[in-house]
């Protein structure tokens, strides 16, 4: 176990508390940089989606994880970013300009959503953000002069400084990775400055934050704006990756996926956004795999236990019919969320910390170490 001896106030501020972090993240970055030369094109494509989901995850963490304002409207912010890019592209606006414009516009709309949300907390805020998402979805479908309605919009190949960057090229992956890394570094910077601490203060006690001089309304709006702007940036990348966007891609289902990203990853640390993104992107091919192979496997097991060929075929057909039921994916997502909330509220990153601590303290690890303590009831009347 490592003991940190802090000798300077700088030790409390720096991003990497000790050399171990530099090595770990250095190796990770090196692996990510050589990935295009090693992994198959399918896995590279999945990795790009991991980056995009992780960017949205970080954005959602700022708002939900650190400021405590739940949102089920992030698919709408993603859509606004994506459509801004697709629209501006028609007028031959260069990539850096429409990339920034998409972030800026989404940020402004995020702030506008933040204002009515100031008086709402908890479940009411969730409902408000859902309504916002539904409104945006409807606008995208109806405002045909700009969005081409349900026909959708084609997104041209990204061109960066005159060089074409196809959506499955390593350069596009590097671009997504760079945006992700910059987002994470920016967010970490924010979290170690007064603004980030004000966010956390609002999450834990608005009354106390106010009496310490935090303008709660202003910081909530700031949090909404920052979160939306980052999601807007992700939207541009998303549009380019898909090369075609239409309103039915940005449904409530997508917002729920983003919530799953941070719930499963862990809401208390940025690691959670990345782990959750890996989880959500990888679970889809895994479920497809199960759907294709599971009936055969179960029939095989039945056959080894002496079932006749006819019975085995019957079982296979029934399992296959069950696996291709409509809405099964949503149900599986739902079950996963419930299980995580019940048994691992700290998410995958929390689980990783526990495993790490187990080996650091071996054999002294106590199960109660991570138990959440809430003994003293805070006064609700001053809210």
């Amino acid at each position, binding site marked *: 176990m490592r003991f940190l001896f802090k000798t300077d*106030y*700088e030790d*409390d*501020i720096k991003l990497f508390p000790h050399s171990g972090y530099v090595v770990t993240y250095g190796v990770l970055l090196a692996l990510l940089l050589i990935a295009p030369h090693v992994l198959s094109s399918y896995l590279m494509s999945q990795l790009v989606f991991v980056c995009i989901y992780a960017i949205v995850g970080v954005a959602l963490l700022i708002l939900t994880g650190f400021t405590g304002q739940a949102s089920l409207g992030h698919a709408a912010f993603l859509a606004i970013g994506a459509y801004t890019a697709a629209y501006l592209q028609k007028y031959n606006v260069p990539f850096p300009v429409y990339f920034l414009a998409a972030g800026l516009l989404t940020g402004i709309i995020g702030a506008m959503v933040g204002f009515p949300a100031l008086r709402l907390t908890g479940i009411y805020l969730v409902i408000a953000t859902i309504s916002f998402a539904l409104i945006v979805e409807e606008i995208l479908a109806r405002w045909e002069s700009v969005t081409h309605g349900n026909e959708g919009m084609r997104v041209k190949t990204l061109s960066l400084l005159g060089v074409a960057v196809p959506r499955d090229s390593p350069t596009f992956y590097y671009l997504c990775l760079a945006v992700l890394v910059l987002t994470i570094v*920016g967010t970490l*910077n*924010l979290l*170690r*400055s*007064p*603004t*980030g*601490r*004000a966010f*956390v*203060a609002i*999450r*834990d*006690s608005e*009354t*106390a*934050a*106010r*009496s*310490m*001089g*935090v*303008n*709660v309304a202003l910081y909530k709006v*700031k949090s909404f704006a*920052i979160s939306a702007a980052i999601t807007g940036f992700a939207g541009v990348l998303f549009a380019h990756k898909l090369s075609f966007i239409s309103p039915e891609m940005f449904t409530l289902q997508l917002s729920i996926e983003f919530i799953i990203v941070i719930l499963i990853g862990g809401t*208390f640390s940025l690691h959670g956004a990345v782990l959750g993104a890996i989880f959500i992107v990888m679970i889809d091919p895994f479920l497809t795999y199960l759907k294709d192979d599971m009936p055969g496997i179960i029939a095989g097991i039945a056959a080894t236990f002496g079932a006749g060929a006819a019975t085995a075929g019957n079982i296979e057909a029934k399992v296959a019919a069950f696996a291709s039921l409509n809405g099964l994916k949503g149900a599986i997502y739902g079950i996963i969320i419930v299980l995580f909330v019940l048994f691992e509220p700290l998410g995958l990153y929390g689980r990783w910390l526990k495993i790490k601590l187990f080996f650091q303290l071996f054999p002294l690890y106590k199960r109660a170490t991570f138990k*959440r*303590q*809430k003994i*003293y*009831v*805070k*006064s609700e009347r*001053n809210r």
Partner: protein
Amino acid sequence: MSYFRAENLSLHFGGLKAVDAVSFAVEKGEILSIIGPNGAGKSSIFNLISRIYRPTSGRIFFEDQDITEQPPYDIAKLGIARTFQNIELFENATVLSNLLVGRHRHSTTQLWQELLFLPSVRANEKVHRRRVEQVIEFLDLEPYRDKLISGLPYGVRKVIELARALCSEPKLILLDEPSSGLNVEETGDMSFWIRDMRTELGITVLMVEHDMSLVNRVSDRVIALNYGRVLAMGSPAEVQQHPDVVAAYLGA
């Protein structure tokens, strides 16, 4: 003119008069205690001063400035800090970041500077950190710097709340029952700290307290309230012998 002044302060919830035409003044460098039975309106007065409640009528002045209409977050900026009766700390943050929130009123950096963590932000952070360290030293909180609030015992939380208020370098501090839930030894420490706050840091103290031994040890003056009205005002001994106060506590 007095340093801090409340004039005819009233707070009515429908027909209930939680605070009823209370007037008092606090002199600079004074320790003034407000006592009274449960429900007398003591904490309500604090919530009026820190603008959690809007007074039904009456005015509040601080350093000759009318602060009755100031938004709540500006009260801290003027130099009035407070603690809460039922501890309001940021549960899922470390002690250090709790105390750094106390420095919020002194932060001058802009959002874009913070995103890039420019040298100016870094320099400011170090100044904040040094101030926080002074408070940590003042209140003997060294063992807890990196601990999460949610794992700390009540007595320590109480001190951390005081520390957070001190981190904002207030001119006037409002302590809402600083000794509630503390044992005799911790209450003793608290009384030393309250006096040191005045003598070493030059902070004016207004506190609500039930523990009469603490009130007697630290207060210059005492105000007794009952049913939202002032019963008596004066030195601790005078107030305790006042017939109305005795009647309020013991029944007539």
